[in-house]
């Protein structure tokens, strides 16, 4: 009975604290989200460049992704962070701003194929960079 109670307390504590590493876990999760957004926006940019999308869809879904990237950056900025992670988090916040900006530029001029091509390359590169940062945490 005592063992069961101890197990229950341990499980509750683990759930409540996210296994004792909540901040790092959240930071990593946010940066993974940024990588995911960038990779998705790269696919959208590729379809945009090749005229394989609908402008309304691109603008609306692009806005969702751009806002999400900004939101993740805000979360990173507000979170109490392990000092050892400071530089990496700053880098991720910078990437997030770049990603959001690239998506917004394409939303403004969806018929600019050259811009979309450049954005696709950049977004793929930023996705990779964000993944590396997340992987290092």
């Amino acid at each position, binding site marked *: 009975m005592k063992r069961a109670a101890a197990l229950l307390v341990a499980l509750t504590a683990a759930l409540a604290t996210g296994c004792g590493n909540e901040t790092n876990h959240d930071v990593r999760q946010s940066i993974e989200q940024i990588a995911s957004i960038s990779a998705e926006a790269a*696919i959208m940019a590729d379809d945009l460049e090749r*005229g394989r*999308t609908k402008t*309304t869809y691109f603008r*609306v879904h692009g806005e*969702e992704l751009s806002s999400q990237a900004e939101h993740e950056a805000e979360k990173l900025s507000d979170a109490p962070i392990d000092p050892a992670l400071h530089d990496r988090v700053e880098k991720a916040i910078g990437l997030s701003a770049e990603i959001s900006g690239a998506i917004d530029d394409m939303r403004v001029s969806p018929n600019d194929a050259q811009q979309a091509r450049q954005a696709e390359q950049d977004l793929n590169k930023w996705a990779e960079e964000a993944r590396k940062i997340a992987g290092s945490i």
Partner: protein
Amino acid sequence: MGRGGPQDRGLDLKKVFQIALGIVAAVGGFVDIGELVFNAQAGALFHYKLLWAVIVGVIGIMVFAEMTGRVAAVAGRPVFDVLRMRMGINVAIVGLIASLAINLLTLAAEVGGVAIVLQLLFDVKFGTMLLLGLMGLVLIVYFVPFEGIERIFGYLGCALLVYVAAAVHLKPDWHDVAQGFVPSWHGSALYAYFAVGVIGAALVPYEVYFYSSGGIEDGWTEKDLGLNRMNTILGFGLGGILSIAIIMVSAQVLGPAQIDPSYLGTTALGAQHAYGETGLLLALLGMLFAVGGAAVEAAFSGAYTLAQFAGWEWGKYRSPSGAPRFTLSWLIFFALAFVVVATGVDPVILTEYAVIFSVVALPLTYLPVLLIARDRTFMGNHTNGLFADVLGWLYFVIILIVALAAVPLMLITQQGSA
């Protein structure tokens, strides 16, 4: 699955086309807003490894939907009636409250989903699309007869078949796909969460509340047992195929890029990537009617349970003045759903909660169905055969396991995000 008489063996060709009820119930249940995103997440995270869970869910809903349709056709009783009769008033009250709460959550999510799809199509503000989408749904439900509603949402929702074409077009590794149909254990809570979610989503109670009451709306009798069987096999089979296709497309487009889908727009990206703008438009059209169908299903399901519990006149086949409280109920459900979505809550998150909490209520829904479908007093010669009985009890055990595991897994995985 039941012991059918000779009358249910012969199906005329006309009835082959009368499977809209099964299609709308299945398309609404399997590919509503939550499942569109949930299946895409399952494919992106685990590639083909959760395809088996879709099959487990599809067979389960086929088994129980066939029973509820048979009970409706033979005993003339919809599921909630059965629940009250077999489990008593106290359990029925618990069932009613749970069902109404889950239906409202689901309806709010689906109405929000309709607004999102309209926004993706027309790039107009979400609030405007929410109002227009809601008005469109209410007008269709008010003015179009039940059979027409089934056909509009069931058949137009089939535009989602673009995912089936895309899944093949993207040239998957068929060996990996085949392996995905073999149940496997991945050893992580996240995998278990998605497996439970995929199985549970196929079995959500509002599908059978809607399906059995819909059978009565369609005037089913013992002569329609073959039609019921065909509805469950073809309709729910189609829902399963769509789920599988969405998982496959996601595994091929989103998985390799390590994209974590959280939006309906991300699910649509898979169809666009395969077929360009045409694929995108078909996906969005299919989503609009699948999610719209799920909204109608949830609104009716709520009104059916309430009316059947209270003993009111119910049914879309009656005019609004012939079943005024039933009509008022589904109108109020739509209005409440509008209020919930207008608060700004994310419809996708809402429906994921609705699915997980529905899973907890599954045993309460399916046990009385199983008991009455094998009760000769009610079913005469149409009680469960051995095959239906064995499958029914086997699935009841699966349902119990899924129901017990759902909430702990949701907490441990932080709703699939950990």
